[in-house]
Protein backbone atom coordinates (compact mmCIF):
# COMPACT_ATOMS: atom_id res chain seq x y z
CA UNK A 1 0.00 0.00 0.00
CA UNK A 2 1.37 3.36 -1.03
CA UNK A 3 -0.12 6.73 -0.17
CA UNK A 4 1.36 9.97 -1.47
CA UNK A 5 0.16 13.49 -0.73
CA UNK A 6 -3.23 12.43 0.66
CA UNK A 7 -5.44 15.37 1.60
CA UNK A 8 -8.95 15.33 3.04
CA UNK A 9 -10.96 18.17 4.57
CA UNK A 10 -14.39 18.27 6.13
CA UNK A 11 -15.58 21.76 5.33
CA UNK A 12 -12.86 24.16 6.38
CA UNK A 13 -11.22 21.64 8.71
CA UNK A 14 -8.23 19.90 7.15
CA UNK A 15 -8.11 16.40 8.64
CA UNK A 16 -5.46 14.75 6.50
CA UNK A 17 -2.82 17.09 5.16
CA UNK A 18 -0.36 15.90 2.54
CA UNK A 19 0.12 12.48 4.09
CA UNK A 20 2.61 9.88 2.85
CA UNK A 21 2.42 6.31 4.08
CA UNK A 22 3.83 2.96 2.98
CA UNK A 23 2.69 -0.44 4.14
CA UNK A 24 4.93 -3.15 2.65
CA UNK A 25 3.28 -6.48 1.85
CA UNK A 26 3.41 -8.97 4.70
CA UNK A 27 4.12 -6.45 7.46
CA UNK A 28 2.11 -5.29 10.43
CA UNK A 29 2.17 -1.50 10.33
CA UNK A 30 0.71 0.63 13.11
CA UNK A 31 -0.80 4.06 12.70
CA UNK A 32 -0.59 5.90 16.00
CA UNK A 33 -1.23 9.42 17.19
CA UNK A 34 -3.51 11.53 19.35
CA UNK A 35 -7.27 11.73 18.92
CA UNK A 36 -8.21 13.71 15.86
CA UNK A 37 -4.85 13.20 14.17
CA UNK A 38 -6.63 11.90 11.06
CA UNK A 39 -5.90 8.18 11.47
CA UNK A 40 -9.43 6.92 10.88
CA UNK A 41 -10.00 9.24 7.92
CA UNK A 42 -6.77 7.97 6.41
CA UNK A 43 -7.78 4.32 6.62
CA UNK A 44 -11.26 5.15 5.33
CA UNK A 45 -9.67 6.73 2.25
CA UNK A 46 -7.42 3.70 1.86
CA UNK A 47 -10.46 1.41 1.83
CA UNK A 48 -12.33 3.55 -0.64
CA UNK A 49 -14.96 4.52 1.93
CA UNK A 50 -14.11 8.20 1.60
CA UNK A 51 -13.04 10.13 -1.42
CA UNK A 52 -9.80 12.03 -0.83
CA UNK A 53 -9.60 15.66 -1.95
CA UNK A 54 -6.25 14.88 -3.55
CA UNK A 55 -3.37 12.45 -3.41
CA UNK A 56 -2.26 9.22 -5.02
CA UNK A 57 -3.28 5.94 -3.40
CA UNK A 58 -2.41 2.43 -4.47
CA UNK A 59 -3.68 -0.49 -2.41
CA UNK A 60 -3.04 -4.11 -3.49
CA UNK A 61 -2.54 -2.79 -7.00
CA UNK A 62 -5.84 -0.89 -7.08
CA UNK A 63 -6.84 2.74 -6.83
CA UNK A 64 -9.33 2.93 -3.93
CA UNK A 65 -11.08 5.91 -5.52
CA UNK A 66 -11.80 4.48 -8.96
CA UNK A 67 -11.51 0.75 -8.27
CA UNK A 68 -13.21 0.42 -4.87
CA UNK A 69 -15.40 -2.43 -6.12
CA UNK A 70 -12.38 -4.57 -6.98
CA UNK A 71 -10.42 -3.54 -3.90
CA UNK A 72 -12.95 -3.88 -1.09
CA UNK A 73 -13.40 -7.67 -1.34
CA UNK A 74 -9.64 -8.09 -0.80
CA UNK A 75 -9.59 -5.95 2.33
CA UNK A 76 -10.91 -7.14 5.67
CA UNK A 77 -11.72 -4.34 7.99
CA UNK A 78 -12.81 -3.85 11.52
CA UNK A 79 -14.15 -0.33 11.62
CA UNK A 80 -14.41 2.06 14.47
CA UNK A 81 -17.97 3.04 15.46
CA UNK A 82 -19.98 0.72 13.32
CA UNK A 83 -22.54 -1.87 14.21
CA UNK A 84 -24.66 -4.70 12.93
CA UNK A 85 -28.46 -4.83 12.95
CA UNK A 86 -29.61 -5.38 16.55
CA UNK A 87 -31.57 -8.54 15.88
CA UNK A 88 -29.03 -10.23 13.62
CA UNK A 89 -27.65 -13.42 15.17
CA UNK A 90 -23.93 -14.20 15.19
CA UNK A 91 -24.26 -17.17 12.82
CA UNK A 92 -26.46 -15.10 10.50
CA UNK A 93 -23.82 -12.38 10.39
CA UNK A 94 -21.37 -14.97 9.07
CA UNK A 95 -23.91 -15.96 6.39
CA UNK A 96 -24.49 -12.34 5.46
CA UNK A 97 -20.84 -11.31 5.19
CA UNK A 98 -19.41 -14.59 3.89
CA UNK A 99 -18.64 -14.49 0.17
CA UNK A 100 -18.11 -17.72 -1.78
CA UNK A 101 -14.40 -17.57 -0.90
CA UNK A 102 -15.04 -17.33 2.85
CA UNK A 103 -13.20 -19.46 5.41
CA UNK A 104 -15.03 -21.80 7.76
CA UNK A 105 -16.86 -19.40 10.04
CA UNK A 106 -17.23 -22.03 12.75
CA UNK A 107 -13.46 -22.27 13.13
CA UNK A 108 -13.13 -18.51 13.47
CA UNK A 109 -15.90 -18.38 16.07
CA UNK A 110 -14.09 -21.10 17.97
CA UNK A 111 -10.78 -19.25 17.73
CA UNK A 112 -12.33 -16.07 19.13
CA UNK A 113 -14.42 -17.78 21.78
CA UNK A 114 -17.79 -17.03 20.23
CA UNK A 115 -19.03 -20.55 19.53
CA UNK A 116 -21.40 -20.43 22.49
CA UNK A 117 -22.88 -17.18 21.15
CA UNK A 118 -23.73 -18.48 17.66
CA UNK A 119 -27.45 -18.01 18.21
CA UNK A 120 -27.24 -14.76 20.18
CA UNK A 121 -28.47 -11.53 18.61
CA UNK A 122 -25.98 -8.71 18.11
CA UNK A 123 -27.61 -6.40 20.65
CA UNK A 124 -27.12 -8.97 23.42
CA UNK A 125 -23.34 -9.22 22.91
CA UNK A 126 -20.97 -7.49 25.31
CA UNK A 127 -18.54 -4.87 24.01
CA UNK A 128 -15.71 -7.39 23.89
CA UNK A 129 -17.84 -9.97 22.11
CA UNK A 130 -18.83 -7.40 19.50
CA UNK A 131 -15.19 -6.52 18.88
CA UNK A 132 -14.33 -10.18 18.48
CA UNK A 133 -17.23 -10.71 16.11
CA UNK A 134 -16.04 -7.77 13.99
CA UNK A 135 -12.62 -9.36 13.90
CA UNK A 136 -14.13 -12.66 12.79
CA UNK A 137 -15.98 -10.83 10.01
CA UNK A 138 -12.82 -8.96 9.01
CA UNK A 139 -10.95 -12.25 8.59
CA UNK A 140 -13.83 -14.25 7.11
CA UNK A 141 -13.19 -13.75 3.40
CA UNK A 142 -9.43 -14.46 3.39
CA UNK A 143 -8.42 -10.81 2.93
CA UNK A 144 -4.94 -9.90 1.67
CA UNK A 145 -4.94 -6.71 3.71
CA UNK A 146 -6.61 -6.34 7.09
CA UNK A 147 -7.33 -2.92 8.54
CA UNK A 148 -8.01 -2.91 12.25
CA UNK A 149 -9.18 0.35 13.83
CA UNK A 150 -9.08 0.41 17.63
CA UNK A 151 -8.75 -3.34 17.63
CA UNK A 152 -8.86 -4.19 21.31
CA UNK A 153 -10.96 -1.32 22.63
CA UNK A 154 -13.19 -2.65 25.39
CA UNK A 155 -11.49 -6.02 25.68
CA UNK A 156 -10.29 -7.46 28.96
CA UNK A 157 -6.55 -8.26 29.21
CA UNK A 158 -6.96 -11.97 28.46
CA UNK A 159 -9.13 -11.30 25.42
CA UNK A 160 -6.62 -8.71 24.23
CA UNK A 161 -3.81 -11.25 24.32
CA UNK A 162 -6.02 -13.69 22.41
CA UNK A 163 -6.69 -11.09 19.73
CA UNK A 164 -2.98 -10.22 19.49
CA UNK A 165 -2.12 -13.89 18.98
CA UNK A 166 -4.73 -14.08 16.23
CA UNK A 167 -3.26 -11.03 14.48
CA UNK A 168 0.25 -12.51 14.67
CA UNK A 169 -1.00 -15.80 13.29
CA UNK A 170 -2.77 -14.01 10.47
CA UNK A 171 0.42 -12.14 9.64
CA UNK A 172 2.42 -15.38 9.74
CA UNK A 173 0.06 -16.67 7.07
CA UNK A 174 1.11 -13.75 4.86
CA UNK A 175 -1.65 -11.19 5.45
CA UNK A 176 -0.64 -7.55 5.61
CA UNK A 177 -2.08 -5.71 8.60
CA UNK A 178 -2.66 -2.00 9.10
CA UNK A 179 -3.41 -1.33 12.73
CA UNK A 180 -4.85 1.95 13.98
CA UNK A 181 -4.39 2.19 17.70
CA UNK A 182 -4.13 4.32 20.80
CA UNK A 183 -2.59 1.48 22.74
CA UNK A 184 1.17 1.80 22.59
CA UNK A 185 1.76 -1.58 24.17
CA UNK A 186 -0.34 -3.04 21.39
CA UNK A 187 1.69 -1.28 18.71
CA UNK A 188 4.93 -2.31 20.41
CA UNK A 189 3.81 -5.93 20.74
CA UNK A 190 2.50 -6.35 17.21
CA UNK A 191 3.93 -3.88 14.74
CA UNK A 192 6.96 -4.25 12.51
CA UNK A 193 6.76 -0.54 11.86
CA UNK A 194 4.68 2.33 13.14
CA UNK A 195 3.83 5.68 11.63
CA UNK A 196 3.12 8.53 14.04
CA UNK A 197 0.46 11.00 12.93
CA UNK A 198 -0.11 14.54 14.10
CA UNK A 199 -2.47 17.08 12.54
CA UNK A 200 -3.08 14.97 9.47
CA UNK A 201 0.55 14.19 8.68
CA UNK A 202 2.97 11.38 9.38
CA UNK A 203 5.67 13.04 11.48
CA UNK A 204 7.91 10.01 11.86
CA UNK A 205 7.88 6.34 11.01
CA UNK A 206 10.03 3.34 11.73
CA UNK A 207 10.38 0.22 13.80
CA UNK A 208 9.09 0.76 17.36
CA UNK A 209 12.61 0.34 18.76
CA UNK A 210 13.98 2.94 16.33
CA UNK A 211 11.31 5.45 17.31
CA UNK A 212 12.08 4.88 20.97
CA UNK A 213 15.78 5.32 20.24
CA UNK A 214 15.14 8.57 18.38
CA UNK A 215 12.58 10.18 20.63
CA UNK A 216 12.75 8.64 24.08
CA UNK A 217 16.17 7.21 24.74
CA UNK A 218 16.53 8.29 28.38
CA UNK A 219 16.39 5.48 30.90
CA UNK A 220 16.04 6.30 34.59
CA UNK A 221 17.41 4.17 37.43
CA UNK A 222 16.47 4.91 41.02
CA UNK A 223 17.55 3.29 44.24
CA UNK A 224 18.09 4.12 47.89
CA UNK A 225 21.56 4.10 49.34
CA UNK A 226 21.80 5.97 52.69
CA UNK A 227 25.54 6.37 52.52
CA UNK A 228 26.80 5.75 49.02
CA UNK A 229 30.57 5.45 48.66
CA UNK A 230 31.72 8.59 46.81
CA UNK A 231 33.85 6.54 44.48
CA UNK A 232 30.84 4.45 43.50
CA UNK A 233 28.87 7.51 42.44
CA UNK A 234 31.90 8.86 40.63
CA UNK A 235 32.28 5.62 38.78
CA UNK A 236 28.61 5.57 37.88
CA UNK A 237 28.88 9.10 36.59
CA UNK A 238 31.69 8.07 34.27
CA UNK A 239 29.84 5.05 32.88
CA UNK A 240 29.20 5.06 29.16
CA UNK A 241 25.89 6.73 28.39
CA UNK A 242 25.21 8.21 31.84
CA UNK A 243 24.11 11.82 31.56
CA UNK A 244 23.14 12.71 35.06
CA UNK A 245 23.42 11.38 38.58
CA UNK A 246 21.38 13.15 41.25
CA UNK A 247 20.87 12.59 44.91
CA UNK A 248 18.05 13.59 47.20
CA UNK A 249 18.61 12.30 50.71
CA UNK A 250 19.14 8.58 50.39
CA UNK A 251 17.54 8.47 46.93
CA UNK A 252 19.91 8.20 43.99
CA UNK A 253 18.69 8.80 40.47
CA UNK A 254 20.73 7.98 37.38
CA UNK A 255 19.63 9.08 33.94
CA UNK A 256 21.12 8.33 30.57
CA UNK A 257 20.89 6.25 27.45
CA UNK A 258 18.96 2.97 27.62
CA UNK A 259 22.18 0.95 27.79
CA UNK A 260 23.16 2.46 31.19
CA UNK A 261 20.85 -0.06 32.80
CA UNK A 262 23.36 -2.81 32.07
CA UNK A 263 26.38 -0.78 33.18
CA UNK A 264 24.88 0.65 36.37
CA UNK A 265 23.54 -2.70 37.52
CA UNK A 266 26.86 -4.35 36.79
CA UNK A 267 28.65 -1.64 38.83
CA UNK A 268 26.28 -2.11 41.77
CA UNK A 269 26.92 -5.84 41.74
CA UNK A 270 30.65 -5.29 41.51
CA UNK A 271 30.61 -3.00 44.57
CA UNK A 272 28.37 -5.47 46.36
CA UNK A 273 25.89 -2.65 46.85
CA UNK A 274 22.73 -4.13 45.32
CA UNK A 275 19.87 -2.00 46.71
CA UNK A 276 16.58 -3.63 47.76
CA UNK A 277 14.45 -0.99 46.01
CA UNK A 278 16.22 -0.82 42.65
CA UNK A 279 13.71 0.62 40.14
CA UNK A 280 14.37 0.91 36.45
CA UNK A 281 12.34 2.95 34.02
CA UNK A 282 12.98 2.03 30.42
CA UNK A 283 11.17 4.33 27.98
CA UNK A 284 8.79 2.71 25.52
CA UNK A 285 6.85 3.67 22.48
CA UNK A 286 4.45 5.71 24.59
CA UNK A 287 7.30 7.98 25.71
CA UNK A 288 8.50 8.23 22.14
CA UNK A 289 5.00 9.22 21.03
CA UNK A 290 4.66 11.81 23.79
CA UNK A 291 8.12 13.09 22.95
CA UNK A 292 7.24 13.37 19.31
CA UNK A 293 3.84 14.94 19.84
CA UNK A 294 4.85 17.36 22.57
CA UNK A 295 8.53 17.85 21.85
CA UNK A 296 9.28 16.84 25.46
CA UNK A 297 11.34 13.75 24.89
CA UNK A 298 14.20 12.94 27.22
CA UNK A 299 12.58 14.94 29.98
CA UNK A 300 11.75 12.21 32.47
CA UNK A 301 10.51 13.93 35.63
CA UNK A 302 13.06 13.72 38.40
CA UNK A 303 13.18 16.04 41.38
CA UNK A 304 16.32 16.24 43.35
CA UNK A 305 19.59 17.87 43.88
CA UNK A 306 21.84 17.64 40.89
CA UNK A 307 25.15 16.31 41.98
CA UNK A 308 26.81 15.69 38.72
CA UNK A 309 26.41 14.61 35.17
CA UNK A 310 27.34 15.36 31.68
CA UNK A 311 25.52 15.68 28.45
Amino acid at each position, binding site marked *: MTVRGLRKSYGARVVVDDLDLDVPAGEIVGLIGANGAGKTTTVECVQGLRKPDSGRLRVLGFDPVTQAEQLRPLVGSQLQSSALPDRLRVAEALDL*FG*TPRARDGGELLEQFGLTQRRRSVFSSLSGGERQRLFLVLALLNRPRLVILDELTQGLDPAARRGVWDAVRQLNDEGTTVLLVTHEMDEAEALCDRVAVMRAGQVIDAGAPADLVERHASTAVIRFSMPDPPARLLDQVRRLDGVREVSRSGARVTVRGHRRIVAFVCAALVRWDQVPADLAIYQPGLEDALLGLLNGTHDEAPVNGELIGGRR
Partner: protein
Amino acid sequence: MNTAVGRLVRAELRLMTRDPLVLTFVFAFPIVTMLIIGGAFGTRPDPAFDGTNPSHWYVASYLTVVIAATGLVMLPVHLASYRERGVLRRFAAAGFPRWSFAIAQLTVGLLTTAVACALLLAVAAPVYGIPAVHDAWRVAVALPLGAVAFVSLGVLLGSLLPSARAAQAVGLLLFFPSFLLGAGGPPPHVMGSVVKQVAGPLPLTLLTNAVRAPWLGLGPATGSLIAVAVLAVAASAAAARRTAL
Protein backbone atom coordinates in the same frame (compact mmCIF):
# COMPACT_ATOMS: atom_id res chain seq x y z
CA MET B 1 -28.47 -17.25 -3.78
CA ASN B 2 -25.00 -16.54 -2.49
CA THR B 3 -24.77 -13.27 -4.38
CA ALA B 4 -24.42 -10.12 -2.31
CA VAL B 5 -28.02 -9.11 -3.05
CA GLY B 6 -29.27 -12.60 -2.23
CA ARG B 7 -27.46 -12.61 1.10
CA LEU B 8 -28.73 -9.13 1.95
CA VAL B 9 -32.32 -9.98 1.03
CA ARG B 10 -32.20 -13.19 3.08
CA ALA B 11 -30.84 -11.38 6.14
CA GLU B 12 -33.25 -8.45 5.80
CA LEU B 13 -36.29 -10.74 5.48
CA ARG B 14 -35.21 -12.64 8.57
CA LEU B 15 -34.75 -9.39 10.50
CA MET B 16 -38.10 -8.08 9.37
CA THR B 17 -39.93 -10.99 10.95
CA ARG B 18 -38.30 -9.98 14.25
CA ASP B 19 -39.14 -6.28 14.03
CA PRO B 20 -42.25 -5.24 15.96
CA LEU B 21 -42.54 -1.92 14.09
CA VAL B 22 -42.89 -3.74 10.79
CA LEU B 23 -45.25 -6.35 12.12
CA THR B 24 -47.61 -3.84 13.71
CA PHE B 25 -47.40 -1.01 11.25
CA VAL B 26 -47.30 -2.80 7.94
CA PHE B 27 -49.24 -5.94 8.75
CA ALA B 28 -51.64 -5.14 11.62
CA PHE B 29 -52.47 -1.44 11.24
CA PRO B 30 -54.00 -1.57 7.71
CA ILE B 31 -56.04 -4.67 8.55
CA VAL B 32 -57.41 -3.32 11.82
CA THR B 33 -58.30 0.09 10.39
CA MET B 34 -59.84 -1.50 7.30
CA LEU B 35 -62.04 -3.67 9.51
CA ILE B 36 -63.16 -0.63 11.52
CA ILE B 37 -63.72 1.86 8.68
CA GLY B 38 -65.03 -0.78 6.30
CA GLY B 39 -67.77 -1.60 8.79
CA ALA B 40 -68.60 2.02 9.67
CA PHE B 41 -70.58 2.95 6.54
CA GLY B 42 -72.43 -0.30 5.93
CA THR B 43 -72.63 -2.22 2.67
CA ARG B 44 -75.48 -0.44 0.87
CA PRO B 45 -74.38 1.42 -2.31
CA ASP B 46 -73.92 5.06 -1.40
CA PRO B 47 -73.63 8.14 -3.64
CA ALA B 48 -70.83 9.48 -1.39
CA PHE B 49 -68.86 6.42 -2.47
CA ASP B 50 -69.63 6.90 -6.17
CA GLY B 51 -72.58 4.58 -5.79
CA THR B 52 -70.46 1.64 -4.64
CA ASN B 53 -70.69 -0.54 -1.55
CA PRO B 54 -68.65 1.42 1.10
CA SER B 55 -67.09 -1.75 2.50
CA HIS B 56 -65.85 -2.68 -0.96
CA TRP B 57 -64.65 0.90 -1.51
CA TYR B 58 -62.39 0.53 1.51
CA VAL B 59 -61.20 -2.97 0.64
CA ALA B 60 -60.15 -1.57 -2.76
CA SER B 61 -58.46 1.39 -1.02
CA TYR B 62 -56.49 -0.35 1.67
CA LEU B 63 -53.86 -2.15 -0.40
CA THR B 64 -52.31 1.25 -0.93
CA VAL B 65 -52.31 1.86 2.83
CA VAL B 66 -50.02 -1.16 3.13
CA ILE B 67 -47.80 0.29 0.42
CA ALA B 68 -47.66 3.69 2.12
CA ALA B 69 -46.96 2.19 5.55
CA THR B 70 -44.03 0.29 4.07
CA GLY B 71 -42.69 3.25 2.14
CA LEU B 72 -43.31 6.13 4.50
CA VAL B 73 -42.76 4.50 7.88
CA MET B 74 -41.04 1.13 7.80
CA LEU B 75 -38.23 1.79 5.32
CA PRO B 76 -37.20 5.31 6.39
CA VAL B 77 -36.87 4.24 10.02
CA HIS B 78 -35.04 1.08 9.04
CA LEU B 79 -32.56 2.80 6.75
CA ALA B 80 -31.94 5.80 8.94
CA SER B 81 -31.14 3.53 11.86
CA TYR B 82 -28.72 1.55 9.68
CA ARG B 83 -26.93 4.70 8.62
CA GLU B 84 -26.94 6.22 12.09
CA ARG B 85 -25.41 3.10 13.63
CA GLY B 86 -22.75 2.53 10.99
CA VAL B 87 -24.33 -0.62 9.54
CA LEU B 88 -24.18 0.81 6.02
CA ARG B 89 -20.51 1.68 6.45
CA ARG B 90 -19.87 -1.89 7.49
CA PHE B 91 -21.65 -3.21 4.40
CA ALA B 92 -19.61 -0.87 2.21
CA ALA B 93 -16.35 -1.83 3.90
CA ALA B 94 -17.22 -5.52 3.61
CA GLY B 95 -17.21 -5.20 -0.16
CA PHE B 96 -20.92 -5.36 -0.91
CA PRO B 97 -21.34 -4.01 -4.45
CA ARG B 98 -22.49 -0.41 -4.75
CA TRP B 99 -26.05 -1.09 -5.76
CA SER B 100 -26.63 -4.27 -3.79
CA PHE B 101 -28.15 -2.58 -0.77
CA ALA B 102 -30.57 -0.43 -2.78
CA ILE B 103 -31.70 -3.44 -4.80
CA ALA B 104 -32.08 -5.53 -1.67
CA GLN B 105 -34.22 -2.84 -0.01
CA LEU B 106 -36.42 -2.56 -3.07
CA THR B 107 -36.84 -6.33 -3.18
CA VAL B 108 -37.61 -6.59 0.53
CA GLY B 109 -40.03 -3.65 0.38
CA LEU B 110 -41.91 -5.15 -2.56
CA LEU B 111 -42.05 -8.61 -0.99
CA THR B 112 -43.32 -7.13 2.28
CA THR B 113 -46.08 -5.20 0.56
CA ALA B 114 -47.06 -8.28 -1.48
CA VAL B 115 -47.36 -10.44 1.62
CA ALA B 116 -49.15 -7.74 3.64
CA CYS B 117 -51.59 -7.11 0.76
CA ALA B 118 -52.35 -10.83 0.47
CA LEU B 119 -52.96 -10.97 4.20
CA LEU B 120 -55.27 -7.94 4.04
CA LEU B 121 -57.33 -9.52 1.26
CA ALA B 122 -57.44 -12.82 3.13
CA VAL B 123 -58.93 -11.03 6.16
CA ALA B 124 -61.29 -8.88 4.06
CA ALA B 125 -62.67 -11.79 2.02
CA PRO B 126 -64.72 -13.52 4.73
CA VAL B 127 -65.78 -10.22 6.39
CA TYR B 128 -66.73 -7.83 3.55
CA GLY B 129 -66.05 -9.91 0.49
CA ILE B 130 -63.57 -8.84 -2.18
CA PRO B 131 -65.15 -6.62 -4.85
CA ALA B 132 -64.98 -7.82 -8.46
CA VAL B 133 -62.08 -6.29 -10.38
CA HIS B 134 -63.44 -4.42 -13.43
CA ASP B 135 -60.23 -3.51 -15.16
CA ALA B 136 -57.70 -6.05 -13.96
CA TRP B 137 -54.71 -4.96 -16.02
CA ARG B 138 -54.81 -1.36 -14.83
CA VAL B 139 -54.97 -2.53 -11.22
CA ALA B 140 -52.17 -4.99 -11.93
CA VAL B 141 -50.03 -2.19 -13.35
CA ALA B 142 -50.89 0.44 -10.74
CA LEU B 143 -50.14 -1.69 -7.66
CA PRO B 144 -46.56 -2.67 -8.48
CA LEU B 145 -45.82 0.80 -9.86
CA GLY B 146 -47.15 2.34 -6.67
CA ALA B 147 -45.14 -0.10 -4.58
CA VAL B 148 -41.96 0.80 -6.46
CA ALA B 149 -42.75 4.52 -6.05
CA PHE B 150 -43.38 4.36 -2.30
CA VAL B 151 -40.63 1.89 -1.51
CA SER B 152 -38.20 4.16 -3.37
CA LEU B 153 -39.56 7.21 -1.56
CA GLY B 154 -38.98 5.36 1.70
CA VAL B 155 -35.42 4.45 0.78
CA LEU B 156 -34.84 8.06 -0.23
CA LEU B 157 -36.29 9.44 3.02
CA GLY B 158 -34.21 6.97 5.01
CA SER B 159 -31.07 8.15 3.29
CA LEU B 160 -31.86 11.84 3.80
CA LEU B 161 -33.07 11.90 7.40
CA PRO B 162 -30.34 12.10 10.03
CA SER B 163 -31.58 9.55 12.56
CA ALA B 164 -34.10 6.80 13.16
CA ARG B 165 -36.07 9.08 15.47
CA ALA B 166 -36.24 11.82 12.88
CA ALA B 167 -37.27 9.27 10.28
CA GLN B 168 -40.05 8.01 12.50
CA ALA B 169 -41.33 11.52 13.20
CA VAL B 170 -41.22 12.63 9.57
CA GLY B 171 -42.51 9.27 8.33
CA LEU B 172 -45.56 9.34 10.60
CA LEU B 173 -46.16 12.98 9.76
CA LEU B 174 -46.25 12.12 6.08
CA PHE B 175 -48.14 8.88 6.53
CA PHE B 176 -51.16 9.87 8.60
CA PRO B 177 -52.36 12.87 6.56
CA SER B 178 -51.79 10.85 3.39
CA PHE B 179 -53.67 7.94 4.90
CA LEU B 180 -56.62 10.03 6.04
CA LEU B 181 -56.86 12.19 2.92
CA GLY B 182 -55.83 9.74 0.25
CA ALA B 183 -56.81 6.20 1.15
CA GLY B 184 -58.31 5.17 4.45
CA GLY B 185 -60.28 8.29 5.45
CA PRO B 186 -63.54 9.79 4.22
CA PRO B 187 -64.34 9.57 0.48
CA PRO B 188 -63.50 12.70 -1.58
CA HIS B 189 -67.20 13.51 -2.10
CA VAL B 190 -67.74 14.36 1.55
CA MET B 191 -64.57 16.45 1.86
CA GLY B 192 -64.74 20.24 1.86
CA SER B 193 -63.30 21.93 -1.21
CA VAL B 194 -60.06 23.05 0.50
CA VAL B 195 -59.40 19.60 1.95
CA LYS B 196 -60.18 18.08 -1.41
CA GLN B 197 -57.68 20.40 -3.06
CA VAL B 198 -54.99 19.45 -0.58
CA ALA B 199 -55.76 15.75 -0.89
CA GLY B 200 -55.88 15.65 -4.70
CA PRO B 201 -52.18 15.85 -5.60
CA LEU B 202 -50.88 13.73 -2.70
CA PRO B 203 -48.97 10.69 -4.02
CA LEU B 204 -51.09 8.31 -1.98
CA THR B 205 -54.33 9.87 -3.29
CA LEU B 206 -53.09 9.44 -6.84
CA LEU B 207 -52.05 5.84 -6.24
CA THR B 208 -55.28 4.92 -4.46
CA ASN B 209 -57.26 6.47 -7.27
CA ALA B 210 -55.21 4.59 -9.87
CA VAL B 211 -56.02 1.31 -8.10
CA ARG B 212 -59.56 1.86 -6.81
CA ALA B 213 -61.19 3.45 -9.85
CA PRO B 214 -60.37 0.65 -12.34
CA TRP B 215 -61.01 -1.97 -9.66
CA LEU B 216 -64.54 -0.78 -8.85
CA GLY B 217 -65.36 0.28 -12.43
CA LEU B 218 -65.29 4.02 -11.67
CA GLY B 219 -63.13 4.94 -14.64
CA PRO B 220 -59.61 4.34 -16.00
CA ALA B 221 -57.85 6.99 -13.84
CA THR B 222 -55.17 7.27 -16.52
CA GLY B 223 -53.89 10.62 -15.23
CA SER B 224 -53.31 9.21 -11.74
CA LEU B 225 -51.60 6.15 -13.20
CA ILE B 226 -49.21 8.28 -15.25
CA ALA B 227 -48.42 10.42 -12.22
CA VAL B 228 -47.63 7.31 -10.18
CA ALA B 229 -45.43 5.98 -12.98
CA VAL B 230 -43.47 9.25 -13.14
CA LEU B 231 -43.05 9.20 -9.36
CA ALA B 232 -41.87 5.57 -9.48
CA VAL B 233 -39.18 6.34 -12.05
CA ALA B 234 -37.99 9.55 -10.39
CA ALA B 235 -37.99 8.18 -6.84
CA SER B 236 -36.27 4.92 -7.69
CA ALA B 237 -33.54 6.69 -9.65
CA ALA B 238 -32.93 9.14 -6.80
CA ALA B 239 -33.05 6.38 -4.17
CA ALA B 240 -30.57 4.18 -6.00
CA ARG B 241 -28.13 7.08 -6.26
CA ARG B 242 -28.46 8.01 -2.60
CA THR B 243 -28.02 4.49 -1.24
CA ALA B 244 -25.05 3.44 -3.34
CA LEU B 245 -22.58 1.99 -0.84
